[in-house]
């Protein structure tokens, strides 16, 4: 399977994102890949719009529905939400959309910070397989993937994104840090 250049997908995502930015819009990246993407999008938006856009970072670890099976991921990152969530239009940014469970977990955490006016979801890739009534509003590309495979987004020291596919057996996949 030939993989697309994630830099082109990010450009496609940016074109969908920019018209949605309002006065009360804030960006929130989901660790880890979503934070990289959010920072790239933010940098360009702020340059083109000529103003600061509030932004934050969330990790779904403490709200995951599989905590009882997998325990707490100790590498979880602390939430950074340096703005008042109430009445804001939140755009969540993540790298891969799969089952929707990460999005659900992040939304639960988001509402513990306050009551946003709206929440939208921007993802680089929708791989299919949603298990909840949650779908991304902005998508870099729809690229279905087999259940035993997962996309892995990496960023090199120059900040350039790279996409690959990881194969795993169903057993090995059980405890792996796959994007869901």
């Amino acid at each position, binding site marked *: 399977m030939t993989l697309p250049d994630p830099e082109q997908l990010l450009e496609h995502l940016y074109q969908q994102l920019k018209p949605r930015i309002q006065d009360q819009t804030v960006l929130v990246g989901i660790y880890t890949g979503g934070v990289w993407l959010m920072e790239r999008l933010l940098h360009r938006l702020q340059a083109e719009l000529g103003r600061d856009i509030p932004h934050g970072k969330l990790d779904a670890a*403490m709200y995951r529905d599989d*905590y009882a099976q997998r*325990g*707490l991921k*100790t590498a979880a990152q*602390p939430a950074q*939400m340096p703005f008042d969530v109430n009445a804001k239009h939140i755009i969540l940014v993540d790298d891969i959309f799969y089952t929707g469970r990460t999005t659900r977990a992040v939304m639960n955490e988001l509402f513990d910070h306050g009551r946003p006016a709206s929440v939208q979801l921007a993802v680089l890739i929708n791989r299919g397989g949603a298990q909840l009534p949650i779908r991304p509003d902005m998508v870099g590309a729809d690229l279905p993937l087999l259940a035993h495979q997962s996309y892995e987004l990496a960023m090199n020291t120059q900040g350039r994104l790279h996409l690959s596919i990881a194969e795993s057996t169903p057993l090995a996949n059980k405890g792996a840090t796959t994007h869901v």
Partner: protein
Amino acid sequence: MYNPQLNAQGQLQHLLSIEGLPKRILNDILDTAENFVGVAEREVKKVPLLRGKTVCNIFFENSTRTRTTFEIAAKRLSADVLNLNVSTSSQSKGETILDTVNNLIAMHADMFVVRHQQSGAAHFIAQHVPPHISVINAGDGRHAHPTQGLLDVFTIRKYKPEMHNLRVAIVGDVLHSRVARSEIHALTTLGVPEIRVIAPRTLLPTDVEKLGVQVFHNMEQGLKDVDVVMMLRLQNERMSGALLPSSQEFFQTFGLTPERLALARPDAIVMHPGPMNRGVEIDSAVADGKQSVILPQVTYGIAVRMAVMAILGGGNAA
């Protein structure tokens, strides 16, 4: 080496003592605690990790402060909390520790936080409970107080991240202090190169050097150039016989005053596990001074206890 706190996979099953715990587990707890520090600053001060679980604080010995911080920690993890002050209830009616514990197991408790005046009580309970229940030692006799030791090193790491380059002084009643013992094990495991204890001979255990510490009987010598001054509470209630002439004399010789603190490094931090005896171990000017991190210790204590409970309650996946 067998450690009753770890399961067959080397994961944390109970937290009974710092002694024997590998550095990776201490770092896992401290790193996890970082994630919980910010929870208290949010609109909803809760995360759902222990939703549906029941945490029992079984205190055979009174301690309002420690029990309260464990209770807040469990509630911020969304657990249901039972507080049992056993010293004034069942035990006084003749019930044994295991009778009490068995009743709580029958009530489907998931985690026990145990304080007892006898060393080894938490180990005893941990050996008895079924595998799905975890036990946290909240202080047993003179033996251990692991979450206090962990919250102290967490506080030190916050203010002095270069742990491999620190000089730490622990001052006061080391003999009766389970806190000091846990702190020394935690600091040693995390690679702090120089740990000093400063106390009169009557308030030091006979084998204290075997813990890898330097012993000083003089505050002026012991405090010189240290990065951290950790004061201990003078535990009069645990003393039998005349270990000290008087609290006034103790303060004159071993109390932390601004003049003595000036011997430490200028950016040294001052810690105390509480409750403080002002004018006995510590001068109010120091306790309330700009180098004091005594109140942040309390705040971080909740985050550290949340981390321990979250790790133990999550399928032991630390």
